[in-house]
């Protein structure tokens, strides 16, 4: 255990000035110190992907990153996806195609898919499946998730989102 050090996390366009131990994971800092509990913890060793967020536009397992490593970087979490009451096309597609049941893995899948499609809007269906295979879902058998992400990809190509 070592002393806490001050740190500012930039999450969804807002600064959070916090003070954490060097060993504190980014996901714990986001959830416990910044109060953004939409990002979930499923395994704490980078396999399940429930904690996936975007750091400077790239999907990241926030359980495998220390909070201090995220200083000065732009963090996006599920809380930042919707525009007021208007859902992001990815969120809407998950609702339309039954891409979620319990909803626990959902924020991770949303951020993973949004991050990849913003970077690579014309990704092939096959490559997209490889990307989605990096996160675990235990409820849906992935059928609804795959349909939703493919549908959202079409929507996002129509109206490209700019990175916040």
């Amino acid at each position, binding site marked *: *255990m070592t002393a806490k050090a001050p740190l500012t996390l930039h999450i969804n366009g807002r600064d959070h000035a916090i003070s954490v*131990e060097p*060993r*504190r994971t980014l996901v714990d800092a986001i*959830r416990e110190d910044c109060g*953004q*509990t*939409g*990002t*979930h*913890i*499923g*395994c*704490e*060793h980078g*396999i*399940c992907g*429930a904690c996936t967020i975007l750091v400077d536009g790239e999907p990241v397992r926030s359980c495998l990153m220390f909070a201090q490593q995220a200083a000065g970087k732009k963090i996006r*979490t*599920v*809380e930042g*996806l*919707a525009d007021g009451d208007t*859902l992001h096309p990815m*969120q809407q597609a*998950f*609702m*339309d195609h*039954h891409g*979620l*049941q*319990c*909803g*626990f*893995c*959902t*924020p991770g899948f*949303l951020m993973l898919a949004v991050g990849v499609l913003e970077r690579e809007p014309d990704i092939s269906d096959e490559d997209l*499946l*490889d990307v*989605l*295979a*990096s*996160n*675990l*879902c*235990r*409820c*849906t*058998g*992935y*059928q*609804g*998730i*795959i349909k939703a992400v493919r549908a959202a990809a079409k929507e996002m190509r129509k109206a490209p989102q700019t990175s916040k």
Partner: protein
Amino acid sequence: MTAKFIGRSVPRLEDRPLLTGRGRFAADISFPGQWHMRIARSPVAHGKIRNVDVSKAKAVPGVYAVWTFADVAELPPIGFRLTGLVELEPYRQFVLARERVRYVGEPIAAIFASDPYIAEDAADLIELDAEHLPVTLSASEDPGFFEDNRSTEATVIRKGYGDVDAAFKAANSVLSLDLSIGRHSGVPLETRGVIARYDDKSDILEMYGAAKVPHWNRDTLARMLGRKTGGVQLFEGHVGGGFGIRGELYPEDVLACYAALKFRKAVKWIEDRREHLIAANHSRQQRHQIRAAIDVEGRILGIEDTFFHDNGAYMRTHAATVPDLAAAMLPGPYRVPAYRVTGHIRLTNKTPCGTYRAPGRYESTFVRERLMDAIAAKIGVAPLEIRRRNLIARQAMPYDLKLDTLGTRIIYDSGDYAKLVETAERKFGARDEIMQRRKKGEHVGIGSALFVEKSGLGPSDLVRISLDAAGEIEVVTGSASVGQGIETVVAQICADTLGVDYARVRVIHGQTDRIEQGGGAYASRVTVMTGEAARRAAEDLRNKALTAAAALMQTTADKLQIAEGTISAKSGAGPTMTLAALAKTYPLTGEGFFEYKHMVYPYGVHIAQVRVDARTGGVTVEKFSVAYDIGRAVNPMLIEGQIAGGVAQGVGGALFEDFVYDANGEPLSVTFADYLMPTAREVPEIGILITEDAPSPLNALGLKGAGEGGVNAAGAAIAAAIDDAIGIPGAVTELPVSPKRVKALILDGTIADRD
């Protein structure tokens, strides 16, 4: 009643908060000044405890308290919820290890600290001094000792009917198979969690993070902690997957609640993944030695099955439930004139077990359907043909199986099994592509398996409904959500009964302070039991509304109707009145109680297509199809979701998921890198056909359950498909079928010549 919402795939009412990061899962709940609990767990699979040294842990700054068994000695062991045979009671688990440790992962101490990181640091400093004892790791070898003079064979269950010996004497031939199912479990993505808090003002112990059976857990906690029932209240938030294992009462739940009472502090415990994989219920592990007597055409004359159920180190809340279901539901959709089953319930030095989605059926369906495939091979007819010869006919419904389970007599309420088999084969069973690819040297195969599910376990459910002056409807049920969509389904049923929009119906569940009883969410019971209770409640409210409106509108209730929240004359003439307006002057409430002692029995067919890589032994599931008769589909999209999710778990159990132990009882599957769950790459596109051929005669809407039909026969169908792909009938005798096993099968036998 106009079916405006029932039968339609309307969007889920649950989705918005879950999509926007506004869910309220256990870890999301915190109270000011809360303490964090961490459990220190036994690193020894079997040992006599000499000492648990907590001194170093206590000295860590930020640690408030450390408990061992002596601190919780007044707490009884955790009792049974279902199938609680008296002879199993000595095998119950105490909340912290007493005298002995019996599996790696058993709680030996509880640490309470200001911060979860500190609590975890301290837990690492706890030292167990134990005299190592021999470990028992297989339930089918000779039993060992649970304690002095107490065998690890907790009990033997026996069921049956008919003259089995005569059947075998009369047999044209007899088949014997030795089949095993591996150890795997639900493994929801959200680990377990509990936040307990004592409220001085109301003298109520509150528990958050509740799931599945909040009322049962409340009553049990109250008994264990010596409190009045009303002095403990459970609050269900969002639940990150259930699958049978979450929401049972575990040692950690009791410890957190007891600590909240003792310390007068909010106490929070969130399980980590390693803990989950060694401490939450495992399931499934059985070995069956089954014999069948058949006539010359392959018709079953009798079945005798002896099986060994590995329940791990203790008997938890489910007691004998899983083996009892396996024994009682093994006959499935077939006429079995004589049946005798003997189930040895044994304990081993592994994680204790409970139910996992389709408990006992994933296992016994694998066994029964392997047997049917063996009979087909013996007689020399197609697998589906041999099944057809043995199916229970539609005319025989309702069919009394002459067996009991879960306190109910198994009577199949309705079904046309032959019709579903025919439909499934026509839609999903084409072999042309396979034959073509085989000619090119590919090892592809197809396998089918049939099953009867059970659902709608009673004994009862209670629902209350009210409509406020804004026209909003609140439905309160003691049922629970594990993520399956109960709010949407119950809202659809109420909306159609009442004549309102389903989106105006808010369903409250899992809050013990809102309703005095509730069956919870298990055994695919919610749509059937809560659904019917909700329909009755809505009907009650509707009748009251019409009676009140009739007086105001100077007519009689039978001349009125409700549509889109407005009461009007059926004739279309005269004044109208909204329910909301009526609610301003007249209290609009209703109550529905549904009591039923029998379950309802949906059924289905699974068809798997696999490709085997002969060099590596790797198996790829290329297609998976399910035909399932649901009786009456309330929301087809949600039923398909249930089935697809079940299939994925079934694929996992058939090919990948396995809790492995070394010779010392050390668990080797302790991370998601060792315990392999299917990803989007391993789960193929799933073809689903939902039929409504056999509505249940036991409830008004004809409902049956959807929760377990996707997983039930997946292991059986994949095993058959692998046999077919490698051309060795009966090759697969054990799940999961790892590449190593397939490779061994290929080396042992010879892959059939495809030319």
